């Protein structure tokens, strides 16, 4: 969660502009997600994580930039490529990894898995497995914020693939009609599983997808964490100010397959490598920090070392932790 908020001229609270501490935190948070996901991929390969596992590698700047622009009390909801969102909200890597391995210490006691994880404490509302279903749900969280007049904003994330689902537009319509405090984030990583934007989308500019409902939108370089933060901060101020919803399209890219079982034959290795070389959100941002004399190469290496330790500990914990007790089969069905 961000530092204590500041109040801008028009009376709407917003996250403060980044300083050297927050910039270093951006780097740390992105790298934590990268290393965590690499480890999750490794555990999947070892058969310790089952089912579907969708990695966030390549997209880290989006969730880290947005999360740091939020204020305490704001909520987050997303689909199933959700590990990054959970770590960004401050959920414990041990609890997340234990859910991936299906253990009792996981956030859902091992009953949810990779795609269905929640933290009431961190205002993280999932983790939803049905493409697009999280969008009306997030709109409902925003409805509750308005009903309770609590000043909170909901971030509802979706991929560009989900942005072709009808319920997304039902949500845009209601959110604008009732001026709900919801910010829609379209993470455009160019491929909905194996189908490229060009093959699926009559209007490939997803930030324009709210136009027929008068929902404003903006396109953002989702590989640049500072750009994401700035765009997020402005958009959140707009939404929090009672102006209704807004859409931010984050132009980003995923390096891995759609899920662990996707061979990703629909794009070339060169395409992936070229983005990694030119646009990698962590490498590029690390260079910027060094260029601005905020850190040294040695500092960045130290951060990496520290994070590898956290991730290794989380993995060891998640491998050792016991499976849920058989009695858990019948709990949590009803209150």
């Amino acid at each position, binding site marked *: 969660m961000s530092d204590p908020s500041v109040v801008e001229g028009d009376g709407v609270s917003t996250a403060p502009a980044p300083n050297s501490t927050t910039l270093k935190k951006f780097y740390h948070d992105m790298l934590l997600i990268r290393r965590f996901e690499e480890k999750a991929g490794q555990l999947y390969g070892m058969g310790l994580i089952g089912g579907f596992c969708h990695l966030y590698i390549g997209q880290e700047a989006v969730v880290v930039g947005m999360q740091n622009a939020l204020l305490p009390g704001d909520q987050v909801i997303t689909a199933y490529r959700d590990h990054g969102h959970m770590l960004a909200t401050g959920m414990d890597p041990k609890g997340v990894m234990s859910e991936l391995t299906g253990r009792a210490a996981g956030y859902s006691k091992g009953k949810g898995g990779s795609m269905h994880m929640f933290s009431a404490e961190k205002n993280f509302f999932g983790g939803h497995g049905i493409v697009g*279903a999280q969008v009306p749900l997030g709109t409902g969280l925003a409805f509750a914020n308005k009903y309770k007049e609590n000043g909170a904003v909901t971030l509802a994330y979706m991929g560009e693939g989900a942005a072709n689902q009808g319920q997304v537009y039902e949500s845009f319509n209601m959110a604008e009609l009732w001026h709900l405090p919801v910010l829609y984030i379209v993470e455009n990583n160019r491929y909905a599983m194996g189908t490229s934007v060009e093959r699926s989308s009559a209007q490939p500019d997803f930030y324009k997808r709210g136009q027929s409902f008068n929902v404003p939108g903006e396109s953002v370089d989702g590989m640049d964490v500072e750009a994401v933060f700035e765009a997020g901060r402005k958009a959140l101020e707009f939404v929090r100010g009672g102006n209704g919803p807004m859409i931010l399209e984050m132009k980003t890219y995923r390096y891995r397959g759609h899920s662990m079982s996707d061979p990703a034959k629909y794009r070339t290795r060169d395409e992936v490598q070229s983005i990694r070389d030119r646009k990698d959100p962590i490498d590029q941002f690390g260079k910027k920090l060094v260029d601005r004399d905020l850190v040294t190469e040695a500092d960045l290496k130290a951060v990496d070392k520290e994070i590898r330790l956290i991730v290794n500990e989380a993995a060891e914990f998640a491998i050792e932790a016991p499976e849920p007790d058989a009695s858990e089969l019948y709990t*949590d069905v009803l209150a």
Partner: protein
Amino acid sequence: MSTQILMPALSPTMEEGKLAKWLVKEGDEVHSGDILAEIETDKATMEFEAVDEGRIGKLLVAEGTEGVKVNAPIAELITEGGEAQPVAAVSAPAPVAAPKQEVKATAPTPVATAALIEPSVPDGTEMVSTTVREALRDAMAEEMRRDPDVFLIGEEVAQYQGAYKVSQGLLDEFGAKRVIDTPITEHGFAGLGIGAGFAGLKPIVEFMTWNFAMQAIDQIINSAAKTRYMSGGQMHCPIVFRGPNGPASRVAAQHSQDYSSWYAHVPGLKVIAPYFAADAKGLLKAAIRDPNPVIFLENEIVYGKSFPVPKLDDFVLPIGKARVIRPGKDVTLVSYSMGVALVLEAAEELAKEGIDAELIDLRTLRPLDTDTVIESVKKTNRIVTVEQGWPVASIGSEIAAQVVEKAFDYLDAPPARVNGKDVPMPYAHNLEKLALPTVEDVVAAAKAVLYR
């Protein structure tokens, strides 16, 4: 010459109505499209237009008359310079009966009425005749007064006062913040309601009918029913989805379906399907207070029926309890929702033949109160299930399986099921009648399990 103007049917289920107001008087010239009268149906006050041109002769039904049957003559129209005939000379055709296959049991029989009173209601409690529609509205209003987090959302629930008038008056009392008209967007507003539930509000989501909730069924099942489990108990969704379910009348396949067994199949949901007004009220109040997602299946044909409701400040019934609405010793008839009307009437028919039927109204379909059913079967040794839904994987199928598993040795005959026929609902009046279960079907099934 003169023609007769007949009382119009202004809704699929209307059988009679009130002639609220004449807007013409005897001797007035009228043209097609002129408004002749205001007619109050069970749902709304409607304007009634002239079709033919002419002069109004006699007004046959006075303003303010209630219970005017559909197709009864209400006025004479003199056309082409004819003269009004004395009323006595008009050979009025016998009013054609409106479709009434499901409406036969207009009121509980005296035998059943005695058992309508909930055992938990204290002796001497005053009973007030209330329509199911009013009972549902009262339940919502009482709960909204009690808890500011309860709100109602759906199509036409606010300004229109409810497509079936169930939410009448709620907008006036609670305002637009808590009684919210939506666009036609079932998938969207079901999801929105569930999200609001996750955030701690207690939404009542009205579907204009459950047929339209198929647009939203992914949200109901994947988001509302499963999230508590998937979150290891962290997320809660205290929400009620309600609206009319099952066949109405002459609205054909896409508007006539019983979803009882669909929702009763799903862990993480509670499913309620009341028939009587007291159950509608007491169970809807319980549903709104319940911390789980609750599916509340109403019935359009029952909305206008009046039943006694106990006059108590806070009448709440337990979810998951069936009720023996008439004790008997020869055969158990189990039903819910509109099927209860059939078993009430069938019991009367059977009594004439000396057969003493025990009637059970399930009221809740999930969790199913199998104990009450099994106890009854142990006494009667014979069981017939009755419902309007399709037979395959029906509520009756489930009860038959449970009875066979748990009371096989008590059975003197295989369990019998009376269901709607295994076809999409036809439109034609005769075919629709054939597709729905009848009192005769129930009587025949009861006699079959008695080998009579």
